[in-house]
């Protein structure tokens, strides 16, 4: 069964929120459970960022123990390096999956660490956007899917330096085809990529396989300047750039298999994020993720 058949077996999760180890213990951080209490449609699921060296924190465990929906966002695997999918790491993934019972795995398909996976090695860089990068990354996605029995959705990472001659949407389109998988589009990451390259927000969308799009991320960003070089910082604030909203609205209107929307705002207090969730809901009203038909 290929992905466009398999996608119909995936649950529709709706609007959710993300977290990672320790985020919930920071002063002023969003409590997903409180968000869910205010409006169950805002905190319909929790996307848990997992770096296995740190494990799962008490908040993620508590959420999962209530049987509430989750997705597993990896933070520690270079998908194109077969050595990264070693037996120990896969065993730890299996343990975390057993706790979270996620609907799928997802995460930035880039470089999560330099050298081997080790202390002090962690970072996040985009993939090399060339044709030669597609096959090894697709192989990693397929291997992780086979090992876990869960769909693995690659996400377009952020960055200020993108190396390669493919547009990032072309790269991820080819990657999804090669791995026969679905996609996670981070709309804020895409907006910053487009801005960095002087493109319109929707450049490249015409060739992007929106029918493979299962999840999107929406987040605030801010413009920074370094020696006259301007770029958008993916700060997960509550001010969403106009270009990001254009991408969100385009996806809402054209992605027939969209199942989940994560509003990334984990470092903001509840009262600050409620208007953002309401705005996302309003702009995505026609999407199947909220029960509509594009």
């Amino acid at each position, binding site marked *: 069964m290929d992905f466009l058949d398999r996608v119909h077996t995936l649950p529709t999760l709706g609007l959710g929120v993300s977290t990672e180890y320790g985020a919930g213990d920071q002063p002023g951080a969003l409590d997903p459970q409180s968000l869910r209490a205010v409006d169950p449609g805002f905190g319909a699921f929790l996307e848990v960022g997992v770096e296995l060296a740190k494990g799962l924190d008490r908040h993620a465990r508590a959420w999962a123990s209530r049987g509430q929906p989750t997705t597993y966002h990896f933070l520690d695997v270079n998908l194109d390096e077969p050595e990264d999918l070693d037996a120990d790491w896969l065993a730890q993934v299996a343990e975390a999956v057993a706790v979270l019972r996620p609907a799928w795995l997802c995460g930035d398909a880039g470089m999560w660490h330099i050298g081997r996976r080790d202390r002090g090695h962690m*970072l996040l860089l985009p993939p090399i956007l060339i044709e030669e990068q597609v096959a090894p990354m697709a192989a990693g996605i397929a291997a992780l899917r086979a090992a876990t029995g869960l769909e693995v959705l690659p996400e377009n990472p952020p960055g200020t*330096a993108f190396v390669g001659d493919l547009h990032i949407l072309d790269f991820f389109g080819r990657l999804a085809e090669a791995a026969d998988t679905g996609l996670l589009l981070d709309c804020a990451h895409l907006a910053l990529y487009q801005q960095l390259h002087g493109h319109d927000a929707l450049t490249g969308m015409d060739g992007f396989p929106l029918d493979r799009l299962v999840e999107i991320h929406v987040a605030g960003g801010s413009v920074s300047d*370094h020696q006259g070089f301007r770029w958008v910082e993916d700060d997960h604030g509550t001010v969403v750039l106009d270009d990001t909203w254009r991408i969100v609205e385009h996806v809402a209107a054209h992605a027939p298999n969209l199942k989940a929307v994560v509003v990334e705002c984990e470092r903001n207090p509840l009262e600050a994020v409620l208007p953002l969730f309401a705005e996302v809901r309003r702009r995505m009203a026609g999407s199947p993720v909220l029960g509509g038909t594009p």
Partner: protein
Amino acid sequence: MSRNVAALRNAMARLLHDPAFVETVHAGPVAGLSEAERALLCAVDRRAWSTDRYRRSRAVQALIEELPVTAAVVGVEGVDAFFSSEAFGRVLSQRGSLALDFARWVEPRAGAVARLERAVAAARRGERAPGPGLVTRPGVEPLLLPEGVLAFYAAQRQALGADPVAALAAGRPRVERPVPGAGEDSLLVERGAEGQVQVGGGSPALVRLLAFTTVPRSRDATLAHARRLGCAPGEDAEVVDGLLGEGLLVVRV
């Protein structure tokens, strides 16, 4: 012509950590990169590589945290220089470890204390080469050091206090590396169940035998090495079985 993804990825990581390498890439051909690959890197606005002004500082901080006394000997600049070295390039290209490879790189300047802190870092990681045979338990690092280095380490570690990074960043003067004594200390660096690492003593023969088995060895080879270290025939098996019983040696199938 096919372009090498790993070479590009490693160059990208190096560009983000080393402003001098940015200039090198823009100046002309670079060993390990084809001209097509270099052209892809040069197509990026060079200012884009330094938008995170603290990336290299964070990497330096991580090394100081793992090897504080070594850092006290070579100074913050001596740690920072690693990120402009070919050794850092090899961490990227050979799936190396920053802490372990830094310790090896810096030992000629820092002396044997770098080897001691490297053993602590290695015990913390608990890694061994794959393969069947008898192997020293991951988390146990046998170590032979010149006399006096352990005492120097203990004194300096205490002097650095609870926050060595802050102490060194505040301009604490570099300390002289210890003058090696004539004798030798034979040590076992061991990670405990809670993850804490302790340094203890062992007999020279025991430490040498466990050093031999830090890579997997056959039982016959291990027994032969025990005899070379002075065990009488018959006693060799007794020693090896004793180490297996204590859990200092483990059997890999």
